[in-house]
């Protein structure tokens, strides 16, 4: 059916349409879009509320929430978004997503590799503690995040005592077959760096004589390190 011509439309109707459109455009110009600020990340909701809102899809919701939290880092007009975030709130969100999807690695990746490297020792320590707490719940699956945090804490923050605590937790708790030896041995070298030669040598002896390591090159490497640590200990005496 053909439409009637434009002349069939009363001038008042055309005027209303034009005025409405102009007013809407003016309204839009006078109300600039909101820009997210790094500080505007709200506190994480409770797990029960989020579980209910997930409508039986906790994993999907966990992923969406992670992207939502991540979105706060990438807003325009913010010079150093990572540092400006309230890290207590960020860990709240990350913990929530981890509870929704306990097998997911993404929250720990964000905590250890993204938020954990912001260059602010106080905030980095908050993230490190979050990863450490999460690691204890499933050490064999989450060891890599804690290993990364231990290295960052040791070399970027320079907090060797804390780093050694993480490395010790790796040695004591991450005992699964997928956990590489280097991750379990970090503790020993950190002890040596802390001049606790006695404990370092004890642990190295246990490793070398314990029969758990079958690789000849690795055994040779450990023996060389043992000799070096022993000589350092002798020199300090």
């Amino acid at each position, binding site marked *: 059916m053909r439409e*009637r011509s434009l002349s069939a439309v*009363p001038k008042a109707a055309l005027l209303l349409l034009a005025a409405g459109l102009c007013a809407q455009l003016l309204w839009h110009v006078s109300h600039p879009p909101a820009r997210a600020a790094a500080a505007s990340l709200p506190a994480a909701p409770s797990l029960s509320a989020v579980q209910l809102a997930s409508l039986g899809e906790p994993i999907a919701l966990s992923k969406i929430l992670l992207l939502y939290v991540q979105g706060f880092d990438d807003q325009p007009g913010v010079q150093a978004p990572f540092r400006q975030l309230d890290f207590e709130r960020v860990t709240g969100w990350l913990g929530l997503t981890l509870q929704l999807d306990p097998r997911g690695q993404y929250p720990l990746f964000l905590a250890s590799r993204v938020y954990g490297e912001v260059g602010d020792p106080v905030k980095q320590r908050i993230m490190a503690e979050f990863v450490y707490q999460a690691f204890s719940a499933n050490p064999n699956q989450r060891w890599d995040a804690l290993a990364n945090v231990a290295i960052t804490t040791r070399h970027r923050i320079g907090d060797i005592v804390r780093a050694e605590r993480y490395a010790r937790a790796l040695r004591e708790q991450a005992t699964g077959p997928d956990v590489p030896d280097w991750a379990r041995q970090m503790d020993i070298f950190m002890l040596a760096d802390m001049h606790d030669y006695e404990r370092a040598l004890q642990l190295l002896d246990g490793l070398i004589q314990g029969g758990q390591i079958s690789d000849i090159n690795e055994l040779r490497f450990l023996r060389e390190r043992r000799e070096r640590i022993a000589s350092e200990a002798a020199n300090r005496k």
Partner: protein
Amino acid sequence: MLKQIRTIAHYTLLEAMGNRLIWLFAAVLVAGIGFTGFLDELALTEKREIQLALLAALLRFSGIFLLATFVVTSMVREFNDKGLQLLLALPVTRAGYLFGKMAGFAALAAVPALLFGLLTALLAEPGPSLIWTVSLMLECWIIAAFSMLCVLTFNQVMPALSAVMGFYVLSRSIGTLQLIGSQPLAEHSVSQRIISVMIDCLSAVLPHLDQFTRSDWLVYPGAGWPLLASLAGQSAIYLALLSGAALFDLYRKNL
């Protein structure tokens, strides 16, 4: 013309009563009460906040969905039954018909807004609850007007309802889309820049419904009358725009 508008609005309301739409709103209300009771058992802490936030979101979406569905189906049925031709054969102008229908739907929108607002008032402070109620009514008016425009354009239920839902989802997410589109990283590629410009254009012609009827007004303090005045201003402008567009479509329609 005022008399025509009043009469048509009156019969539009009567039709809604005849369709038992009010009972549907009441059913949503009862479901909402049951839902809050369930949440009360479920939540360990912040019970009131959890109840309010989820209840408000449920009521808001239900109200909009029911109203849009009613507007679309009622108008399509009227077209199919040649009710519009019959009306226009009487001394009724097309503008009188359109504004009459719009007034009827606007009056109808007050029913879910008031019912749902009363329910939220049981859990929230009266002030924020009133602001939330008025905002829901404004939002319903915009959706009802847009539903009318869609029916006049598409003449069929499915395309019209799909367009309304698309419009609603887009209007509620346009603020977020703009934020995503304006990321500094995204501006490097040409395609991203084009998308960003398109989103900005859409944002200019869409009402920002994400700023309407927010649950956080009920849960946290901060919602005030200036905010509502701003929403009323946006609603008035958008209703004028939709009325103009709908009049344009209706007058060009060859019945």
